[in-house]
């Protein structure tokens, strides 16, 4: 009886064995949830951030590069500091700061490294590096920071910042993660995918405390980080910086294009700011300051501001009318019959070139009239519609009314009215030339950005064609890899001989016409055209478009100075100096240079309760400190316009052409 108990004992042994075996079978074979948990448990993806591509100007000078910075990490468990006071002194920390940082680090984790100090510069780090050997538990991680050695072109370059929640949610293929950096405007945004490079992924095994214990499967599944490609731009940093100094204390734009290539030589948006302000650890502080600035320095005006082109549009009107056969170079129109007044006092004595030179408003009234009625239709309403349709087709070839396609985000379309627009506004056959005649001198429903005006100058310089303006001239290496659309020649459909007529007028305008000699540079034949953009809210905007030299042009430029008042003189002065600087590489006209730098066209800021905000213009080395904001503009005569006040005083101010 008792002997049989051995079977019971053996039975119990086997039973337990079987129960365990089935449990093992369940855990290891049937239930795969444990297997999944295991890999997420111990194998971690570590992302390696590649170096972001750098940006060069046309002469190979750095515009943007990465500065190595050092983030200091502390692992509380390993910390050994023999002399805390000395340590604090080394890092120039207060004892209380040290304590609070350590407390945060300890709260985060004892065993894992926590951020101790962020973005130490190379100099700071070199100073403390040797001494750090004495202190256990600290390690550094190299990271990089965008640096802008030229301190210029902030708007076109854009900036880099942490990816936003919205961008994270909206990305089509998940690439960015919380905390990643992304290009946020300008070239940084436009070329984000090229600049950012290819992120590397490393699989590492980590132990229970999250401490890395080596690579997984010897790195068989790792992918290396590929550094972002460098961008080579057509920007000439010296010109850009010089134009910056000219545009200080002004609101407006300077855009210069190399006509033969379509490369942008400089692109100033005034007022501007130092791009380095948005790259440091003080990003958010700097950003909110900029965002609150009433002059809106964050807007890239060359592509994001639209103006009525004013008289500068007469260049296009002349070309289109010549091509259409509505007028001939020798056509003469008197002031009679035009509702618009004129300052030229040369009624009936001007041919087309002369009309461009003196910017005769009635002349172009007649030109546009001829243009719209230059068809077989007898009904003036129908003829106007047909004529305007045709006109729209021809003008839109200049890139007006649509995006040019420059390599910058948020370019505005502007506006070029067509017959449909007026049909909507007034009803079909309820409008005719007399309704829309203000278009003839660049007012009315036209809206054009400075970039487009510069492109118009480039078209005239090239006598009829253009490359789409672009900033980046090479990806990876100079001259390589840019979008093929920037290598495609666009013809505007105007015969080359017509350009000579207009160029003649433009040269005349600079040498003895509307610019009143403000833009004359000895030794360079500049062809230019002034313009006034009517501004209902305040003083008119001053515009100047030009190219130079007349034969074999090197530069086409458009300058917009907001609130500089009637006439293109303010803008013309800036443009001529930039042209001189670009072609001669120096400026001889020191008097004009000084005058332009000292002139101040900033509009008064009316409401703010707090004192006028500080501007972010990089102070030029040669100018003395001056009040940044003028309280009321009329209280103070506008400097460059002063010599002209007498001659202009007799002229009726209500008219627009000049």
């Amino acid at each position, binding site marked *: 009886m*008792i*002997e049989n*108990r*051995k079977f*019971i*004992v*053996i039975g*119990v*042994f*086997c039973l*337990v*064995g079987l*129960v*365990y*075996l089935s*449990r*093992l*079978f369940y*855990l*290891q*074979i049937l*239930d*795969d*949830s*444990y*297997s999944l*948990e*295991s*890999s997420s*448990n*111990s*194998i971690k993806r570590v992302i390696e951030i590649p170096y972001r591509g750098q940006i060069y100007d046309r002469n190979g000078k750095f515009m943007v590069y990465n500065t190595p910075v050092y983030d200091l990490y502390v692992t509380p468990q390993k910390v050994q500091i023999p002399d805390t006071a000395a340590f604090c002194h080394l890092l120039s920390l207060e004892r209380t700061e040290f304590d609070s940082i350590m407390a945060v680090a300890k709260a985060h984790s004892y065993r894992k490294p926590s951020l101790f100090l962020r973005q130490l510069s190379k100099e700071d780090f070199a100073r403390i590096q040797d001494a750090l050997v004495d202190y256990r538990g600290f390690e550094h991680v190299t990271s990089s920071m965008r640096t802008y050695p030229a301190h210029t072109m902030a708007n076109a370059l854009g900036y880099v910042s942490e990816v936003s929640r919205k961008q994270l949610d909206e990305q089509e293929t998940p690439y960015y993660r919380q905390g990643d950096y992304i290009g946020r405007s300008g070239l940084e945004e436009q070329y984000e995918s090229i600049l950012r490079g290819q992120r590397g992924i490393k699989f590492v*095994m*980590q*132990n*229970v*405390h999250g401490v890395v*214990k*080596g*690579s*997984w499967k010897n790195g068989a599944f790792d992918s290396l980080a590929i550094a972002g490609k460098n961008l080579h731009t057509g920007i000439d940093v010296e010109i850009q910086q010089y134009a910056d100094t000219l545009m200080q204390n002004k609101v407006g734009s300077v855009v210069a294009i190399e006509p033969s290539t379509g490369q942008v030589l400089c692109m100033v948006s005034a007022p501007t700011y130092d791009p380095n302000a948005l790259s440091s650890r003080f990003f958010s502080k700097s950003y909110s300051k900029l965002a609150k600035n009433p002059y809106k320095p964050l807007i890239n005006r060359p592509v994001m501001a639209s103006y009525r082109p004013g008289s500068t549009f007469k260049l296009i009107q002349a070309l289109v009318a010549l091509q259409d056969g509505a007028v001939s170079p020798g056509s003469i129109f008197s002031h009679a019959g035009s509702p618009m007044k004129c300052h030229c006092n040369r009624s009936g004595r001007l041919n087309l070139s002369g009309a461009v030179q003196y910017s005769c408003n009635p002349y172009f009234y007649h030109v546009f009239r001829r243009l719209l009625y230059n068809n077989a239709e007898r009904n003036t309403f129908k003829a106007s519609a047909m004529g305007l349709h045709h006109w729209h087709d021809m003008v839109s070839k200049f890139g007006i009314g649509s995006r040019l396609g420059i390599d910058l985000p948020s370019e505005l379309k502007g506006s070029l009215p067509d017959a449909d627009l007026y049909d909507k506004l007034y009803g079909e056959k309820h409008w005719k030339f007399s309704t829309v005649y203000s278009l003839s001198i660049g007012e009315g429903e036209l809206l054009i950005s400075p970039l487009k005006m510069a492109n118009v100058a480039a078209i005239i310089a090239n006598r009829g064609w253009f490359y789409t303006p672009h900033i980046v001239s090479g990806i990876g290496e100079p001259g390589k890899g840019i979008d093929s659309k920037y290598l495609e020649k666009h013809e505007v459909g105007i015969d080359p001989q017509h350009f000579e007529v207009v160029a003649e007028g433009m040269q005349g305008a600079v040498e003895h016409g509307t610019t009143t000699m403000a833009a004359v540079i000895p030794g360079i034949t500049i062809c230019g055209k002034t313009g006034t953009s009517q501004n209902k809210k305040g003083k008119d905007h001053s515009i100047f478009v030009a190219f130079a030299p007349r034969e074999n042009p090197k530069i086409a430029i458009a300058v917009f100075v907001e609130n500089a008042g009637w006439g293109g003189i303010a803008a013309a002065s800036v443009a001529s100096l930039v042209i001189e600087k670009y072609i001669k590489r120096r400026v001889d006209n020191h008097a004009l240079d000084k005058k332009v730098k000292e002139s101040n066209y900033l509009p008064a800021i009316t409401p703010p309760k707090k004192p006028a905000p500080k501007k972010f213009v990089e102070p030029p080395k040669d100018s003395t400190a001056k009040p940044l904001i003028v309280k009321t503009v009329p209280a103070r005569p506008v400097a460059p316009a002063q010599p002209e006040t007498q001659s202009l005083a007799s002229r009726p101010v209500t008219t627009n052409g000049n």
Partner: protein
Amino acid sequence: MLYIACVLMGWLNVYAAVYSPETQTNLFDMSTEAGKQLMWIGTTVLLIIAILVINYRFWDTFAFVIYGITILLLLLVLVAGSNVNGSRSWFKLGAFSIQPAEFSKLGTALALARYIDYPNVNLTKLKDQLSCAGIIALPALLIIASNETGSMLVFASFIIMLYREGLPGFYPLIAIVIVALFILTLIVPKLILFGSILALGLLVFFLTPRYQRSVQNVMVIGITAVSMIAIVAGVDFFVNSVLQKHQQNRIKVLVNPAADPLGVGWNVTQAKIAIGSGRLQGKGFLEGTQTKLDFVPAQSTDFIFCTIGEEHGFIGSAVVLSMFVFLLCRIVILAEKQRTRFARVYGYSVAGILFFHLMINIGMTIGLMPVIGIPLPFFSYGGSSLWSFSILLFIFLKLDSRRVGMFTR
């Protein structure tokens, strides 16, 4: 021999458990646990040779002396031991430590065998039952005093041997009932439990044929029911008041492991993940990620089975498990063949101890038992356990060899 296989596999697994990719250590490096384990194996071989050389009568004769020595060691460790993980149960000898509790199992097994070997001992008699209980309880209490509850529980395994030797069947039955009630108390709400016990009692009463409803039988039913209720009530008190915090948690985790997977349930959850991730074939020797990267705590000692499960998969763990069951059955069968009662009792004790370790250790890694810190025989890293299990087993083999006629002198 199964024993050698176990020890070698254990050694390799200890190596795997402490192996880390960043320090490519040699299997024989004495500074690692695998290296130390090799040293323990070496010394164990010497011990085995010594045991096989010593006359079998030695164990018979000096059973009580050895028992006395282990008791003395247990007492001594309370005074002179060093504190490891809150339990004062280790002697530190340089880099190595020895745990006398491991050896006390040997002493107790010998003493019990010697006692039961007396011709007039009859385990159905209360007096002898109490004597045996005393022999078991003395070291057990000392071990509790040194705060090593896990090792103490091993002494419960002697009940298997006592059962074989004639202990009335209702003792193990009561033990099982208590354990069952214990678990039920933790799972089922108390009122339902009380109700069902009463219902069960009444059911038994009415199902009993009328002629058997003697006062005595009714009394038995009544007392059983009342004591069951008492146990249920007691369990609550026991768990919440007597047990230490970590022990309470271990029991609660067993009942509901998902309750706090990162806190108290960490051990068990991680152990299950490690074993579960091994799948059928395992990740391969030294390829385990969970065990090597410290996710599983104590992976070279108490949770060594995780390494087997993870790196060798279901096949590996099944082989190990069957090997143990085979070893146990083999010991029982050999024990039955013994001519002396001493040898048989001792054999059963060995089987019981090994079985208990196996059941608790593997059970806890696969989430069937509460976490009790006792090693897996021959596998876990640790000199004391390897020595004591080897000595346990080889004394039995020596005793057996006399029967076969080998190794005699």
